[in-house]
């Protein structure tokens, strides 16, 4: 099987999840990565969706954050205020997953507008759970496609500020925060050059002295990921 760039990115994100952690999941690629991790190397990972499901064990990828499948397979169902106050804000969440339209060199995120706030060129969905996931999760994993529209010198709007350590998985490579909080390129995916990643980044990207090459997705990782997606499409 040949992996698509999205699949490489998803598998790389899944691998970031250690077994047994409590993971706050957003819909889309983060949910795919978290469920792939649960189905492979991290079976004891506990997934929390902001809709109020704790310990959901979906067999197919939910299309929305509030799918019935999540409620049916959860250990506990709680209200939305409880999820945010008793679980996220209380600091119980080990890992938060976030996406964004724009990211800056400190891993700050914009999901609000492109252009001016009052007269936006593109109105994006907005904050959702992101600002508090960014502030309260012990660690944040971000997943974005790598290009200069997304990786920008200055955000149009600061929607979320990540507090703890952060890692960004893109379709080109892996960036991790250093002690100052700045993102540094630490790995490139197979057949990607450091120069390509720098060119796709809107700021002067720092590069680790020991850039590694991502292990390609295994047959099993790809098979499981595709099966999860199939389930979702069939539903």
């Amino acid at each position, binding site marked *: 099987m040949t992996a698509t760039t999205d699949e490489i990115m998803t598998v790389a994100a899944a691998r970031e999840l250690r077994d047994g952690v409590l993971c706050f999941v957003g*819909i*889309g690629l983060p949910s795919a990565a978290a469920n792939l991790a649960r189905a492979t190397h991290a079976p004891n990972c506990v997934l929390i969706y*902001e*809709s*109020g*499901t704790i310990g959901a064990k979906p067999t197919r990828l939910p*299309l*929305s*954050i*509030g*799918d*019935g499948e*999540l*409620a049916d397979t959860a250990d*506990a*169902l*709680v*209200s*939305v*205020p409880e999820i*945010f*106050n008793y679980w*996220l*804000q209380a600091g119980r969440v080990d890992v938060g997953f976030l996406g964004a339209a724009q990211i800056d060199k400190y891993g*700050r995120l914009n999901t*609000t507008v492109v252009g001016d*706030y009052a007269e*936006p*060129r*593109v*109105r994006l*969905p*907005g*904050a*959702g*759970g*992101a*600002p*508090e996931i960014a*502030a*309260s999760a012990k660690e944040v994993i971000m997943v974005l496609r790598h290009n200069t529209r997304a990786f920008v010198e200055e955000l149009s*709007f*600061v*929607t*979320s*500020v990540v507090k703890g350590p952060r890692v960004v998985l893109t379709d080109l490579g892996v960036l991790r925060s250093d002690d100052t909080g700045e993102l540094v390129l630490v790995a490139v995916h197979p057949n990607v050059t450091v120069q390509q990643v720098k060119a796709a980044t809107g700021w002067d990207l720092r590069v680790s002295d020991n850039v590694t090459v991502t292990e390609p997705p295994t047959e099993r990782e790809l098979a499981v990921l595709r099966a999860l997606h199939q389930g979702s499409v069939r*539903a």
Partner: protein
Amino acid sequence: MREIGLAEAVAELVRDGDSVALEGFTHLIPVAAAHEIVRQRKRELTLIRMTPDLVYDQLIGAGCARKLIFSWGGNPGVGSLHRFRDAIENGYPHRLEIEEHSHAGMANRYVAGASGLPFAVLRGYIGTDLPAVTPTIKTVRCPFTGEELAAVLALNPDVAIVHAQQADRRGNVAFWGITGVQKEVVLASKKALVTVEEIVDEIEPHHGQVVLPAMAVDAVVKVERGAHPSYAHGYYERDNGFYREWDAISRDRDKFAAWMREHVG
């Protein structure tokens, strides 16, 4: 419990210019009631909802809204809400004022509203641009530790509208599955309308169930499939196909208008 139809309930409870919160977090979205609001051509509403979803895309596109208070305006798993974007980016069908928060902020605003408090405290928004554009976000200092935290203004909508699975004959209402902020929005609002799938003699116990006592509700109306294309856990599934189709329908102003004429009236 008073017998009342949906048209009558909406006519009685929702007035032009009201602040109206239709809630339901992906699950149990009160779509049938929203369509009745469109049919009755309610205007100048302040629409409140964490996730505007298709239901507010339709109300905004139909010209019912003067202002939107929200935290995430997208078509979940699909993409943009095009009527919402058209209103904000191009002022079509007219300008839409917005007040935006995070999910945690909105949830806590409802909690404060339900609790009779003027504000709620949370760890959030710090370092973001949201407080600069949203006047209902401020800060408060802990009188014990001196720590600075975010404060958000309580929400007390004029009308809450939610959909539930069951009501009993006395008007007690039961939700289960993902219950979101249903309880909080009803208790935070001055008036509450609940549409339900079924009216039963005895409410059945379910995991994660929320029961709202009759006195918290002003009208209960039976509307089968009242949440479609959203879903009612235990009754019907989410119509994911329609969510995908909506993208093309809502992208085009005329196509949207035609769809609304044909399906809502």
